[in-house]
């Protein structure tokens, strides 16, 4: 493997990692605040992808339609998530974990089939948008500029969320709830509203991830479950509920994946799970989480 090839592989791993960071961090955030492992998170990602396709190919017919879709699709997913939270999730917050898992799983089935109903089962492509539809040259080798854009999205969103959590009131409340739920309750925060907002934020992130991914890999059935399992691995490794943990976990995941495919393609699939098992056995709360 040449030096150039190595660099390209690293960049490739980074771009995968940064996209999945967007999705994983939403899942982690929802778990940290609401204490629900939202199995439907992958389905929301898929919904974002389909909506991105829809808006950019069908609704907005001008050029630059992708950027409109990138703006609007996540909002659409967030609104959908808000409705779901208010109508359904709210009723099961005080229930046992199994009920919560099964409800979110039911949403996976419903959203999955609704997407199938609306958009069929074919792979739906969106062309890479201008001005990112050409390659850049890194160490003399071509690399899609769109993927470079993806690499930048990760830290951008990370910074945005970091600022949100550190400097806004909402962020303080999120931190309080992640750390000590009873205290946050006692302090008189409007818990239901916070839950809704955080859940919608998580959905927005999932939708954003889905929209971003469409130009590189198209919208298709089954994409929800693949990404969900990957997110599980990442937030376990990084630590459930931890923002820097999700970032670190995504980086590790992206790079391990990129090199795993080179080194042992048949077992690459298992690497993630082996990593997850090792972390759960040695340090269940992840690299940057807190022991409960």
């Amino acid at each position: 493997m040449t030096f150039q090839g190595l660099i390209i592989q690293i960049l490739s791993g980074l771009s995968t990692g940064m996209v999945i960071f967007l999705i994983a961090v939403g899942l982690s955030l929802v778990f940290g605040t609401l204490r629900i492992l939202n199995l439907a998170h992958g389905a929301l990602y898929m919904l974002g992808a389909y909506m991105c396709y829809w808006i950019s190919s069908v609704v907005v017919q001008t050029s630059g339609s992708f950027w409109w879709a990138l703006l609007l699709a996540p909002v659409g997913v967030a609104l959908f998530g808000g409705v779901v939270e208010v109508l359904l999730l709210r009723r099961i917050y005080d229930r046992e974990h199994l009920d919560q898992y099964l409800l979110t799983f039911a949403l996976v089935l419903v959203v999955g089939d609704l997407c199938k109903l609306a958009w069929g089962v074919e792979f739906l492509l969106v062309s890479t948008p201008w001005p990112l539809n050409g390659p850049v040259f890194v160490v003399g080798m071509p690399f899609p500029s769109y993927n470079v854009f993806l690499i930048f999205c990760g830290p951008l969103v990370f910074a945005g969320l970091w600022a949100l959590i550190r400097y806004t009131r909402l962020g303080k409340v999120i931190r309080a709830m992640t750390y000590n739920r009873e205290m946050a309750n006692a302090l008189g925060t409007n818990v239901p509203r916070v839950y809704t907002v955080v859940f919608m934020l998580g959905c927005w992130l999932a939708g954003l991830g889905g929209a971003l991914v469409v130009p590189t890999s198209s919208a298709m059935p089954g994409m929800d479950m693949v990404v969900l399992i990957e997110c599980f691995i990442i937030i376990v490794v990084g630590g459930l509920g931890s923002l820097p943990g999700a970032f670190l976990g995504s980086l590790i995941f992206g790079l391990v994946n990129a090199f795993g495919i080179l080194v042992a393609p048949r077992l690459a699939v298992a690497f993630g799970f082996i990593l997850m098992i090792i972390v759960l056995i040695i340090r269940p709360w992840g690299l940057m989480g807190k022991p409960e």
Partner: protein
Amino acid sequence: MTLSAVRKEKSVSRMIVIVVLAILAALPLVLTKGWLSLVTEMLILALAAGGLNLILGYAGMVSFGPAGLYAVGAYATALILVYTSWPFGLAFIAGPFVAAGAAVLIGWFCVRLTQVYFALLTLAFAQIIHTIIFEWYDFTKGDNGIVDIPLPELLKPIPHYYYFSLIVVALCLGLLWMIVRSPFGKTLQAMRENAQRAESVGIPVRRYQLAAFVISGFFLGVAGSLFCGFNKNVFPNYAHWIKSTEMLVVCLLGGIYNFFGPLVGSVVYLFLDKVITGYTQYWPLVLGLIIIVLLLFLRGGIAGFIAERWAQRRGSREEAS
């Protein structure tokens, strides 16, 4: 309740079980091969869900990976039949023991965690099993699965395999019944209710959770081996988490706090599956909606709902007398 009322209720329950068994035994005389196949599948799924429910409903351990052990049982039987000259009976018996062995290994790691971490670790192990089966092409034939598994002549006709499954499932469910009614079973329930308190009254919770996990794995393995013979082939997706979720849904449908829940859930689930896929390809959508309705309105599952009604009637009858 008075002693005579208790005795009466016990004999009524016994009557119901005998009647149900008699009906099941008579089914091959009235059903077509297609429907009989479906009932066989229902029995096997009922056993798998029943095994899962031992840890799920009784011990309160939510596992995302029962299909992993189910597949271990199925593949153990299949591999033995294909690679050795062991008779079917031996291969069939080996399946659950191999599954139980895997459960010891997996369970030892998993019971050290609780709640969502336990669930995720069981999922990870099940996916590893899936990957091993999928990738170890030379041994397990990977994605192609192992097909044309030889059955003994006696079991080849569908009605015969149906009786075989009926006997095995009835025996296993009987064993499960005995276990959940035993002191061990009550202890599991106490652990579910309050693990900390259980420790404080002297119960070594981790150890018992492992025991329950292994017993559950054994019965999942029986179901896997049964299905291997039923389908005459095995595929990696037997271990896939989609299969695991199917088992969880079946338990929920029937009701996890009721012994007959998994049985009822299995029948209803497969029946609906068959009927609804006849009308529409959107069976997942319907299933999702059913689950949502159940979770919001019928919290004890179907069997739980029935049991509640029965208890209400019994209560009012007692008041009247």
